[in-house]
């Protein structure tokens, strides 16, 4: 019998959380359950109907993020104009109160997008299992936590049992070697990976990101990379924790303290893939060859270098694919062969769980500083949390954005999905730092081009899609 091969990081976290198996299905313990207003009301209603308690309110954290307005939050939920949104927010308030769950309400400086808040508070830690009724829960994998989205029935299941019934996924490793060129970062890496494997390429897998270009990323960059993992179809993304992770966590509100920190740290350091572990699939990319990327179509896999052109249906062989390309071009109002930099922009959105952290705002502000938003462009910055907003204001970033003509908003999911009043009008073209360019995602008929914060900032100034490298001084600046 050949010797057993080693374990991947995913294998290790999975094994450490296995409570029991029932008929071939695992019962997996959940360390942290993040909840928000949109995907939980029916779950709490189910608990009430069956008279079931929340098993571990202390391992549950609630925020209000998806449908909150990004202005006037201090006026409170009672002042939210949208009646349905208000009812949903009030329902969450009642549920967290009834079940004793910690909650950062709208207007609390600690509130914000759930995937910004968890890490920022130090609630997200290496080796954890984390779930949330939101597909971008994969974000937390940046800390070496197994984190993924679940549906509302599963939210109810986790509330009632603190476990999830699950089947193990396969292991994929994406290695990013080399050093990226200036102007190229985590968003471009993520889009490059999705462009490579396709929007369903990761289905059935958990992806571990490795390689020197990943190691060199900050926690913010790693969160962007793991956030977009779901757009490649994979359940979760992982980056093994290292000194960057530990430095980020130390001192955060809910991070372990004193002796507990040392104990946690020694465990966290074991959270690496064994050298002899075998992955079901390996993908290797050279970060040095990745250009600043944008999406041209209506799927995150529709990726092209900013210096490139919109594709032609003729480049594809199958009738289905030709039709899909033609349909996407038509929706996006582009013609085959059109240079991406010809696409005139109406709206710029800097925000979302993908790119609304302090580093994202810094990189956008660096491009915007001393420049003006083009006259025809409506541009907004929506910080990921109240604390990100406060930090940015302390650094004077708000003044840079406002002086350039951006709207400086209060935190929330905002125009990423347009559940609140921030959305695109039909036909409007948006340079967006968010995660989905689906038809109608940011507003019916809205046209979304995904890109990095620096690229979106440059587009705001130029008034059309533009290569951020044209805005950067000197060849060595990153």
């Amino acid at each position, binding site marked *: 019998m050949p010797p057993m091969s080693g374990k991947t990081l995913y294998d290790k976290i999975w094994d450490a959380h296995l409570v029991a198996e029932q008929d*071939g299905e695992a*019962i997996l313990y959940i360390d942290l359950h993040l909840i928000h207003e949109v995907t939980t009301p029916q779950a709490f209603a189910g608990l009430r109907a069956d008279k079931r308690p929340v098993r571990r309110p202390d391992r549950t954290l609630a925020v209000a993020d998806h449908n909150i307005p990004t202005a006037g939050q201090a006026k409170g939920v009672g002042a939210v104009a949208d009646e349905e*949104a208000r009812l949903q927010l009030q329902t969450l308030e009642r549920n967290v109160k009834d079940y004793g769950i910690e909650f950062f309400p709208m207007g609390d400086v600690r509130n914000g997008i759930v995937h910004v808040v968890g890490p920022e508070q130090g609630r997200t830690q290496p080796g954890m299992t984390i779930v949330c009724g939101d597909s971008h829960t994969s974000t937390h994998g940046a800390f070496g936590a197994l984190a993924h989205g679940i549906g509302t029935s599963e939210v109810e299941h986790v509330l009632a049992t603190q476990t999830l019934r699950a089947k193990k996924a396969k292991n994929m490793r994406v290695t990013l070697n080399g050093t990226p060129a200036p102007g190229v970062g985590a968003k471009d890496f993520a889009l490059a990976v999705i462009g490579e494997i396709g929007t369903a390429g990761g289905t059935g897998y958990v992806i571990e990101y490795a390689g020197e270009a990943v190691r060199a990323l900050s926690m913010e960059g790693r969160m962007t990379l793991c956030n977009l993992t779901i757009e490649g*179809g994979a359940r979760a993304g992982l980056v093994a924790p290292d000194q960057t992770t530990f430095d980020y966590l130390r001192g955060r509100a809910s991070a372990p303290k004193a002796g507990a920190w040392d104990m946690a740290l020694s465990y966290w350091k074991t959270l690496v893939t064994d050298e002899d572990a075998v992955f079901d699939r390996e993908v290797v990319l050279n970060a040095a060859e990745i250009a600043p990327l944008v999406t041209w179509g209506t799927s995150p896999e529709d990726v092209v270098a900013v210096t490139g052109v919109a594709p032609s249906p003729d480049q594809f062989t199958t009738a289905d694919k030709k039709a899909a390309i033609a349909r996407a071009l038509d929706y996006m109002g582009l013609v085959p062969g059109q240079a991406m930099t010809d696409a005139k922009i109406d709206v710029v959105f800097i925000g979302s769980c993908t790119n609304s952290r302090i580093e994202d705002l810094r990189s956008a502000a660096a491009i915007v500083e001393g420049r003006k938003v083009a006259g025809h462009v409506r541009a907004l910055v929506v910080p990921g949390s109240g604390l990100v907003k406060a930090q940015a204001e302390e650094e004077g970033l708000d003044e840079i954005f406002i002086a350039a003509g951006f709207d400086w908003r209060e935190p929330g999911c905002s125009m990423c*999905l347009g559940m609140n009043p921030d959305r695109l009008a039909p036909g409007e073209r948006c340079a967006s730092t968010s995660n989905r360019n689906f038809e109608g995602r940011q507003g019916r008929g809205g046209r979304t081009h995904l890109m990095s914060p620096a690229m979106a900032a440059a587009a705001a100034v130029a008034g059309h899609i533009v290569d951020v490298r044209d805005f950067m001084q000197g060849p060595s600046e990153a």
Partner: protein
Amino acid sequence: MKAFTRLDARAVPLQIANIDTDQIIPKQFLKTVEREGLSKGLFYDFRFDPEGKEKPDFILNRSEYKGAGVLVAGDNFGCGSSREHAPWALLDFGISCVISTSFADIFYNNCFQNGLLPVVLKPDEVTALMDEAKGGNHMVSIDLETQTVTSPSGKTFTFEIDAQRKTKMLKGLDAIGETLTAATDIDVYEAKRALDQPWLERA
């Protein structure tokens, strides 16, 4: 949860790949606190024009597909957001089976929580079914017990499904109730973790 055993119903072909959950049920319908009544938002932007008028040419609006119970769709159905409103809307509309070559992970899981059967067939089988459903006869049969789909012309395709999920679907079992039969295991696990990783325990 409602059990799924057998379904004889009209199939409606929707030959688009990567149909995401934003298309299945757009954002404005997610503000409900109920599970019911979501059929009004199903494929809203496909079914209705910006003024809210029905688009007569969209396939789900055509009279011959009224009352369809099966949707035959392109690859990677249900990608995107985790919203369980997507299966809720399909069920509320009367669709309790979706056939495709592949499904996105979270949507696939959500289906099984609600008695909506996602059936994966081979590409040529989906194409054959799609072509037949475009013709005059759209009646198909799905039998979960025998794991078969029978096309309008009588062709039979078999599909794979996880045995555990199949049993639950056939009986309409409640996952929480089943997990709670392992409550002692959860107690034991929690007690051990509290000792091994005390930093995870919040005061």
